[in-house]
């Protein structure tokens, strides 16, 4: 009824090439933005922010970043945890070195630094590919975590080896530390997520995204038609690293506040983000959101059902969570290798023909 392009005439090239060409999609997008920016900050409380919203926002950024690398450019990375740690430690060093500078700048700079580190560890991708590369990125994961654990300069010689986020603000509003308000931290992360999503969406629609996809589909063929694999692969690593670094910085400074690197940014974090984009959908921005939401909500739902409703011990529920996540991954790969995003796409196709399918 509403969801179709019929009658939606485009009068300029700009209108024709916009992100959401279907009117209904566009309004839905504005509606989501309006709810996220206009309503949620006023009704948010600490539990919702810390249990669901902040992890969702932050993991979404990481998932978008990894999706650019894995889903669009086809370079499988298992080093996400390590790169998030780079973002977190870069942010920490900047926060303690320049206390008077706004948090916005710190987070963006931390992302930039992570992008550079990511490019460095992406260099082998020019020689090796597939899961050889996936294993090579494990080197980044283990080396970076070890580095932040062992070199005291990174954690400012603190006795515990942990890093703690000091109280910092932006435009006079407290963002980090225990006294930060839920709405402020939420909005801060939301702004970054919105920015990242818009950048990612437009990058992947444009020349750069097409180059990445050409590399993903077949790198030799892409090289023959004139895509420079060096630039394409390293730019994917750089952009992906930037997003992952931003999410790592937010994860540390805004969400957790105190971080022990092996625990917060271990290999499990890499797999978690990878699972998000597999379940959500490789090569889809919407899929990154869907996957992040799914894997953030799943433990919460399982805990509510298992512990609160059924009254099982928490360790059994934790084991069940492993079983369910594992089974879901396998099921998704068998039934729908393109993830939740593909289900969404199919649903939209059906909606366009409704109520008269041929």
């Amino acid at each position, binding site marked *: 009824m509403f969801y179709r392009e019929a009658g939606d005439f485009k009068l300029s090239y700009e209108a024709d090439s916009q992100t959401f060409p279907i009117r209904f999609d566009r309004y839905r997008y504005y509606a989501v933005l309006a709810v996220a920016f206009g309503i949620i900050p006023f009704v948010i409380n600490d539990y919702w922010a810390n249990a669901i919203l902040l992890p969702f926002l932050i993991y979404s950024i990481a998932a978008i970043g990894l999706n650019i690398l894995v889903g669009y450019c086809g370079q499988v990375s298992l080093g996400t945890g390590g790169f998030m740690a780079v973002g977190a430690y870069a942010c920490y060093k900047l926060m303690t070195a320049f206390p008077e500078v706004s948090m916005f700048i710190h987070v963006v700079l931390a992302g930039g630094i992570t992008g550079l580190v990511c490019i460095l560890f992406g260099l082998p991708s020019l020689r090796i590919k597939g899961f050889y590369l*996936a294993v090579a990125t494990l080197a980044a994961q283990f080396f970076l975590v*070890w580095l932040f654990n062992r070199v005291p300069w990174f954690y400012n010689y603190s006795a515990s080896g942990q890093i703690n986020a000091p109280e910092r603000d932006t435009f006079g509003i407290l963002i980090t530390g225990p006294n930060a308000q839920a709405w402020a931290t939420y909005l801060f992360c939301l702004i970054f997520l919105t920015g990242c999503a818009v950048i990612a969406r437009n990058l992947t629609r444009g020349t750069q995204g097409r180059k990445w996809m050409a590399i993903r589909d077949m790198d030799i063929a892409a090289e023959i038609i004139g895509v420079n694999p060096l630039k394409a692969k390293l730019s994917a690593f750089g952009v992906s690293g930037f997003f992952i670094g931003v999410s790592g910085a937010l994860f540390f400074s805004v969400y957790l506040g105190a971080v022990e690197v092996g625990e917060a940014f271990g290999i499990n974090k890499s797999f978690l983000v990878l699972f998000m984009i597999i379940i959500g959908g490789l090569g889809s921005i919407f899929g990154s959101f869907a996957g992040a939401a799914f894997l953030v909500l799943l433990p919460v739902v399982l805990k509510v059902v298992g512990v609160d409703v059924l009254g099982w011990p928490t360790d059994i529920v934790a084991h069940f969570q492993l079983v369910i996540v594992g089974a879901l991954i396998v099921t998704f*790969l*068998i039934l729908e290798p393109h993830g939740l995003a593909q289900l969404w796409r199919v649903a939209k196709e059906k909606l366009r023909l409704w109520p008269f399918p041929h």
Partner: protein
Amino acid sequence: MSDQLIFAMEVTLNGLMAGVLYALVALGFVLIYKASGIFNYAQGVMALFAAMTLVGIMQGQVPFAHLINAMFGTHVHHFGWNVPALFAILMTVVVMVGFAWAVQVIVMRHLVGQEPIILFMATIGLAYFLEGVADLMWGSEIKTLDVGLPQGINIWIDETTFGIFGYGFFIDNLDIVATVIAALLVAGLVLFSQYTKQGRAMRAVADDHQAALSVGISLNFIWVLVWSVAGFVALVAGIMWGTKSGVQFSLSLIALKALPVLMLGGFTSIPGAIVGGLIIGVGEKLFEFLIGPLVGGATENWFAYVLALLFLVFRPQGLFGEKIIERV
């Protein structure tokens, strides 16, 4: 001879022994990869699962006892008997074969023809699943595994080296047993794949799926067979590592250690797995011994990966791997 040099020799020997254990895990990977092109990330968890099942059967634990108790309010824990080690090992082999069959029928058969990276991710999912099942089945606490393998310092080596260098080397008996078993295992696998009908069929499948099908080899059967053999190798590795450091979650992380071994040796070569394991074992022990103190120690966590990474840049197919040829 200087002390430093003697220490280095001891470290090298210990590294060789550790390398054998890495190679044991890596073998399981190579077997599955050669026959089906699947890079089986779950190999480490399979070793954990096999070791936990072995302990559980030996001690007569009731499977899923914790879960049953939580669901029905009962208090079952043990059947109240102890199973002899050899019999328990046989039963565990049966369990692993059953697992191999289930993996083939439920998962891998539906993924035939998918890209390798999809298969790889499927095995990551499988690893999570199996880990959860293992914990639910046998409980997640650390268990000790004792199937009667000798342990502790080898007195003979200690005394002999003391006689020669004036310093006794510390070599664990268990490591020596592991080396012998690994050698036997490799010899057995080579004999199996060279001289038996099933072994030859396995190699045929590894060479070319379609050609193997056309001469009447059942792919399904071969894949179940391969996963079973990999399960058996996992059991051996699980027994060795479990006896050495207890049966616990960290056992599954040896899979991650086996990855650089494979990259060095090449994914498709059984000798490569052995040589790669030895290089990594010696390399990381020596590096930790010589360079480790200068940079804060615990370099074992990443040395193997960085070594493999640097190596791959110059020889992407590994030491013994088949040359990678790509066409558009």
